[in-house]
């Protein structure tokens, strides 16, 4: 299968990429190409120009400073999964990256491309909402134009395959707080057997004082157009001693947060996915708190 014809341009810096985007209404950025190329081959995407940002050095790199883990947009899933810094700072992200697709998908796919594509079945959006990540976005400078801005993960996703990114903006980095020793995190998913995409995914980050939960952030995805934060679940967890009963009771409340827009397809109906959300979330919290093991 071949894409429709397009012009290919390689950007060497973020500013060059923004310049190229701003001058061409029919242009699309390409990072790893592992969502864009399949779409172009199916001709569901037909950009007139492809701007390859895959070689931009300033979009690379993983650092942790002053309690903040910063990940460049071009970081591949394999780089996340192989990074001791990510393992020690945000275990949930490290483990989730390893569960994406297969080795070749992880070698090419990037965190920036994954979230910008905003596929409801992607794993990272759900995890980044639970981690309270902040996305740094670069647009065109100047007085009347937007320069750099930062958007919380929960506000970045606006629906299936849609985000707050404007046509001439680039996601440059993702930042999140480094987890402390008493903060535990886990992602659990019901994976599509062919692709590993999430049919239902659930992420939990809990802060513990002994056996008692003091702060909780949970999110589910895969079954909704974009990740949904489980505020009812969080409220039920806080102040509780976490055990099989309290976790199950809290996880069941996710139904209150899901809303009515639930995805159903030939693989899994909306009713089924809805029922699985509480189950996956329960798994995530169990594993995070060490009450269950893989």
């Amino acid at each position, binding site marked *: 299968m*071949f894409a429709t014809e397009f012009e290919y341009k390689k950007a060497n810096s973020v500013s060059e990429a923004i310049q190229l985007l701003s001058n061409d209404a029919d242009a699309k950025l390409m990072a790893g190409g592992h969502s864009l190329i399949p779409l172009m081959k199916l001709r569901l995407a037909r950009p007139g120009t492809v701007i390859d940002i895959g070689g931009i050095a300033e979009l690379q790199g993983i650092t942790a400073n002053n309690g903040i883990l910063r990940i460049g947009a071009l970081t591949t899933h394999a780089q996340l999964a192989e990074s001791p810094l990510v393992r020690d700072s945000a275990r949930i992200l490290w483990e989730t990256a390893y569960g994406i697709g297969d080795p070749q998908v992880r070698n090419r796919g990037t965190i920036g491309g994954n979230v910008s594509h905003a596929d409801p079945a992607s794993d990272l959006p759900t995890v980044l909402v639970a981690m309270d990540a902040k996305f740094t976005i670069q647009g065109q400078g100047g007085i009347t134009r937007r320069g750099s801005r930062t958007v919380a993960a929960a506000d970045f996703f606006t629906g299936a395959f849609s985000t707050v990114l404007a046509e001439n903006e680039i996601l440059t980095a993702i930042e999140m707080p480094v987890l402390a020793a008493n903060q535990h995190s886990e992602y659990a998913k019901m994976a599509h057997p062919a692709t590993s995409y999430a049919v239902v995914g659930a992420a939990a980050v809990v802060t513990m004082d002994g056996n008692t939960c003091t702060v909780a952030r949970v999110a589910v995805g895969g079954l909704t157009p974009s990740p949904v934060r489980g505020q009812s679940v969080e409220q039920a967890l806080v102040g509780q001693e976490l055990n099989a009963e309290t976790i199950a009771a809290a996880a069941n409340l996710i139904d209150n947060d899901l809303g009515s827009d639930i995805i159903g397809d030939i693989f899994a109906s909306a009713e089924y996915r809805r029922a699985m959300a509480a189950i996956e979330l329960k798994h995530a919290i169990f594993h995070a708190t060490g009450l269950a093991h893989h």
Partner: protein
Amino acid sequence: MKIQVTVNGKAHEKDVDPRTLLVHFLREDLGLTGTKVGCDTSQCGACVVNMDGTTVKSCTCLAVQADGSQITTIEGLSPKGELDAVQEAFWNNHGLQCGYCTAGMIMTAVELIDKNPNPTEDQVREGLKGNICRCTGYHNIVKAVLAAAEAKRS
């Protein structure tokens, strides 16, 4: 667009249409037909080649993205005609039937063993997740990869 790619140690400079997939460039422009197209949808791994040290599905990579890179295909594993350790292990363990998946399987296995010289059976199965075989049932492929890892260690 002009691209420069080094494939199996040999430098090439070619003019390509930007929409040319890397797999078609290798097969049709360079005549390296060891790399196969199975699904053409990033799922089966028949098209796996090594680009700058890591494996990629060449049906999901544009030839222009490979500009300036070093590529190894199945043909490059045994430049002098002898078998490489992984190829030898596939041969000895009957790790193939029709052979359609084999080039991709071997390219994935080479990277797997490079990264993890002493893999467990589970790690081998996990590492071959992106490679589908319609014939063997995987058992002998896994055996072959474990045997290749052992051979490389000793």
